[in-house]
């Protein structure tokens, strides 16, 4: 019983961290990020999930979780590669901002919390975080990045990436349901 409470608390605090990101982004939305800042947000968002994926790939003993983690690493690495190639082509330097920094620091905090778990508890917490995280990223894309992107190619990249984030979300939700 005590174990269950601990996991629930960890999930809640991770989710709380993610909602803090959403709140920060909502505040940032008042002024709206420029393309250089959007680029930094995209790279940060991908990097956070790549790092979580690497942790899950090494820690989890569950085949499905490991495969999902590898998918996150492959997909988010691919998107980052494309995003970086685009900003280089556009001669735009990604500009760190409050949102990109929050994403990274909250991501690091999540990794620390997940690092303290193991076995089924880890798997459950990792998957729960993936659900919350991808939902938050989808909201950031829809509410902040897409409406503010000025460059057509950057907007095109965001539009192309959105369905991938949604597919990840659906996949994570499916896994979460089967883990109950």
């Amino acid at each position, binding site marked *: 019983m005590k174990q269950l409470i601990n996991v629930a608390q960890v999930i809640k605090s991770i989710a709380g961290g993610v909602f803090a990101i959403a709140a920060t982004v909502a505040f940032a939305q008042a002024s709206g990020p420029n393309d250089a800042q959007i680029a930094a947000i995209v790279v940060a968002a991908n990097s956070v999930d790549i790092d979580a994926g690497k942790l899950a790939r090494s820690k989890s003993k569950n085949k499905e979780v490991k495969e999902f983690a590898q*998918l996150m690493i*492959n*997909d988010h*690495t*691919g*998107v980052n*590669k*494309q995003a970086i190639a685009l900003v280089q082509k556009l001669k735009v330097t990604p500009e760190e901002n409050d949102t990109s920094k929050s994403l990274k620091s909250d991501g690091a905090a999540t990794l620390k919390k997940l690092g303290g778990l193991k076995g089924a508890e880890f798997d459950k917490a990792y998957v729960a975080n993936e659900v919350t995280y991808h939902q938050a990223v989808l909201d950031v894309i829809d509410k902040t990045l897409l409406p503010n992107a000025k460059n057509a190619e950057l907007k095109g990249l965001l*539009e*192309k*990436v*959105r*369905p*991938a984030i*949604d*597919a990840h979300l*659906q*996949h994570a939700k499916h896994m979460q349901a089967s883990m109950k």
Partner: protein
Amino acid sequence: MMRDFMSRMDKRLRDAGLLLLTCIALSAASGAVQADARVHVVVIEAMRYVPDVIEVNAGDTVVWKNKDAFPHTATAGDRDFDSGSIGSEHAWKFKARRKGVFPYVCTLHPTMKATLVVK
């Protein structure tokens, strides 16, 4: 004697003519099949196969081109065909020999579904 000769010549000419016509017909037929075999393209982009239903003739080639930033597959239900991992900006060719309706998916991203119809 002349009549015998003429009738034998007629027969030989007739046989030669038939053989020649058969050769022409066969080469024309095989030429027609080669000329008609087509290449069809399915683009994989934004987590979709475009078009999601493609109809081809038996003997045609289908090329899946991955325009997404990360790998996908084109894998038929009973593994009638399986591209394996198609990397970003890479393609996979498949010669559709067998007729039928072949639903397929991306094994990496299970929400992605499409159909190949071979007539």
